[in-house]
């Protein structure tokens, strides 16, 4: 149902004509995020510059019962920032200022569109950093990180986004501007910040974020351990975790993804190894030296081909660039991919990796593995070419099978990417119907008319969303929401 002219005029009155994208060409470019499998263009995109504008937009949409889809940098990999039912997309890219840096209290308040890495860049000379580092941190927004409760390689030691968000300003689905949490950490009452973080735009849209800043560690040691097989590398990870060592990051990269990284970035990963562990230790110098010895021993127990330590900051930075841009380099291997984001208990890592390999063989699909091994959070990238329908089907089946295998081992349907449009259907594998109903009731408190990001996060039967008649869906056959 296209928006009426009158409605578009009202949007323009709020954000100015330069703040509204209503052309078919412009809207088309917003039809998907990094998950290009699902497509749904909004009827209009608005680019507000203030909380007041966001609130006015949401109230207008509330009045008319038009869906609202929040979007940051559009780097989500689960179809969270696209519009399956059309409506108004609110892009936060023009709200990207740092409002306050308060180093004595180790926190900063930023607008939601600020790029994650830009915050660290702004405070690193003073010896601080913002810890959550999703691989997309060079482009993803802090508002988006908060909305999806993003993880990242260093979350193994430092915790995920929710551990670093002190407060939020949110425009709820009821059009109210509310402040949740704040700089002072000990607050009475409900932990509403904890509820809003990870709510994927279904409760409201984040318009401000107060985050914790951390002191940079005294020393950092980054090493690569190469193994002949995925098995040896996985066993090593389980060994390190079982020994009670918490590295700053413990990433596993297989031979396939290393091929893509080296073709695209040339980051210096060894070619020919079956799998490589990227291990980072940080903290007081004396402590990490002792840890390094232990980690080396644990690696040696699993027949490493080679262990090397990054000689300087430049080499370390390049290794991380390779790791963090790995998913972006997948175009070197195939034009399309689906990315699974399931979790297993860490002791089960060797077992699940064997299953992933068996699934790849069974469905004859190329799977590249690059993931937060220390967290037991898998990221198999399943490659295909969408011009070959049989390949598409095999990729989807392999993807679902990996998820089921993880759950069978006592895992979770998502580690850090969120639920988005892709996984509401899988939540019932992990939650009882009554639990999902309870979440849906909570959602109603923030969003009484069900306009916020419909189709995402919860199965729609649980929330009875107000999907407009004639609302469009552009989903591949076989997908359901």
């Amino acid at each position: 149902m296209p928006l009426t002219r009158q409605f578009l005029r009202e949007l323009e009155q709020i954000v100015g004509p330069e703040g509204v994208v209503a052309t078919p060409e412009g809207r088309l470019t917003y039809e998907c995020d990094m998950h290009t499998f699902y497509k749904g263009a909004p009827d209009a995109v608005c680019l507000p510059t203030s909380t007041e504008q966001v609130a006015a937009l949401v109230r207008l949409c509330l009045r008319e019962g038009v869906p609202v889809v929040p979007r940051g940098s559009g780097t989500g990999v689960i179809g969270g920032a696209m519009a399956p039912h059309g409506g108004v997309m609110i892009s936060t890219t023009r709200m990207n200022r740092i409002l306050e840096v308060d180093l004595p209290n180790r926190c900063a308040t930023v607008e939601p569109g600020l790029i994650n890495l830009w915050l660290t860049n702004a405070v690193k000379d003073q010896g601080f950093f913002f810890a959550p580092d999703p691989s997309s941190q060079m482009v993803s927004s802090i508002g988006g990180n908060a909305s999806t409760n993003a993880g990242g390689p260093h979350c193994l030691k430092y915790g995920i986004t929710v551990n670093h968000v002190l407060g939020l300003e949110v425009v709820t689905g009821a059009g109210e501007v509310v402040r949740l949490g704040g700089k002072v950490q000990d607050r009475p009452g409900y932990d509403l910040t904890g509820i809003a973080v990870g709510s994927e735009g279904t409760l409201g849209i984040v318009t401000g974020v107060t985050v914790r800043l951390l002191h940079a560690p005294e020393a950092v040691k980054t090493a690569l351990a190469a193994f002949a097989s995925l098995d040896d590398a996985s066993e090593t990870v389980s060994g390190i975790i079982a020994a009670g060592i918490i590295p700053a990051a413990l990433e596993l990269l297989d031979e396939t993804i290393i091929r893509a990284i080296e073709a695209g970035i040339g980051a210096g990963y060894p070619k020919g190894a079956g799998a490589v562990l990227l291990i980072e230790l940080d903290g007081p110098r004396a402590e990490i030296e002792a840890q390094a010895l232990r980690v080396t021993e644990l690696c040696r127990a699993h027949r490493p081909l080679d262990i090397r330590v990054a000689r300087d900051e430049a080499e370390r930075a390049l290794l991380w660039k390779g790791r963090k841009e790995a998913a972006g380099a997948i175009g070197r291997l195939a034009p399309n991919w689906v990315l699974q984001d399931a979790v297993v208990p860490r002791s089960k890592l060797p077992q699940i990796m064997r299953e992933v390999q068996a699934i790849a063989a069974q469905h004859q699909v190329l799977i590249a593995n690059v993931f937060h091994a220390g967290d037991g959070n898998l990221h198999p990238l399943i490659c295909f070419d969408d011009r070959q329908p049989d390949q598409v089907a095999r990729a989807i089946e392999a993807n679902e099978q990996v998820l089921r295998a993880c759950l069978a081992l006592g895992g979770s349907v998502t580690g850090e990417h969120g639920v988005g449009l892709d996984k509401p259907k899988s939540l019932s594998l992990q939650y009882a119907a009554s639990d999902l109903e309870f979440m849906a009731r909570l959602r109603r408190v923030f969003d009484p008319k069900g306009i916020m990001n419909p189709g995402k996060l919860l199965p729609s039967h649980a929330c009875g969303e107000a999907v407009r008649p004639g609302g469009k869906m552009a989903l591949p056959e076989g997908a359901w929401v």
Partner: protein
Amino acid sequence: MPGAFDLMDPPDTDGLRACVHCGICLPQCPTYRLLGEEMDSPRGRVYLMRAAAEGRLALTPTFIHHLDLCLGCRACETACPSGVPFGRLLEATRGQIERRGARPLSERLTSALLLSLLPHPRRLALAVGAARLYQRSGLQRLVSAGRLLAPFARLRAMEALLPPSPPGAAAPLPEIVPARGRKRGTVGLLLGCVQRLLFPRVNAETARLLTRAGYDVLIPRDQGCCGALHLHAGQIDEARTLAVRLLTHFGRAVDWVVTNAAGCGSAMREYGHWLGDNRDAEVFSSKVRDVSELLADADLPLQRLDLTVTYHDPCHLAHGQKVRREPRRLLAAIPGVKLVELADSDVCCGSAGVYNLLEPEMADRLLALKLERIAATGAGVLATGNPGCLLQIARGCRERGLAVEVLHPVELLGRALPERARDG
């Protein structure tokens, strides 16, 4: 569904499909930084081109607008881990737009006029002469004050770019300048259309420094134009004609083809691609070097210059040719020079070939950002190796009253190797 592109040089399908929509390019794109809009980002533009290729979009005015707003700076190529050849995709798409006359008439006329001047030094000289006359006659002040030209932002942008005083008439360079000292090789020097007319000193210094570094410098007469701007504008056949003419003039006798204009160098390195199965073109492209690359290893007896210098990366040097270290090394090698890094040094200054004449508003916004960064360095000299950037940034400094001298790196190097040392 049939695609919107025909079979003459369509954008490469595999190139379009290499984009996995990760968005790593977004923060590197100057127009995305300013507008925050997906369709004015590299990822969005690739999406638009792909949609056109797949028949989901026609070459509509809005489609053309978003592609025209692209500077062609190729910062996205530097960022892209999947190797999307954005520059080639853009040029091919513009070629399709251009050939089919899909642009409004006024835009076609402006770009046709600009591009018809370039490959013809005499025509360009006449146009520049006329513009200078206009500046000197006082008419300029009258017209500017009266804002008579305001509706003609493009003309204003054109006249504002010209330096206030013409360069001293330069002695024409001989066809061969022999190497001094131990000979290291033979280079052919591209003079460049804008460079030879507005910055003849840059060419003279380039030749002199190269001979000091041990190169015989051949300067073919009637070498013509490299076709870079035609290529960027989508006049692909014209660019091919110019390319063939140029590479014929340079022959095979040279070890390197040297240019001091980043835009020209970047285009010449693409000849192998655009001329298809042409061995000569491939060989020619493989010999193209920026002057900074050849001088970086030279052992020149440089004298002291007490200056604080900052360096702006021309897009077609940093992104188009991946040359970043050599110009910095050259500048830092001058005794007494304190080289300070410019923040966002590889973000476009807004010049982008003739972009600043065609999209003056966006170009001005980028220039303002660049000037802010330059002012923050406190440097007295800004060095950059491309005539478009030199004109654009110098104009900005003039208009903003920023006391920064804007020079090509070889000009600064030339100062450090003065006349008497030349014979020594």
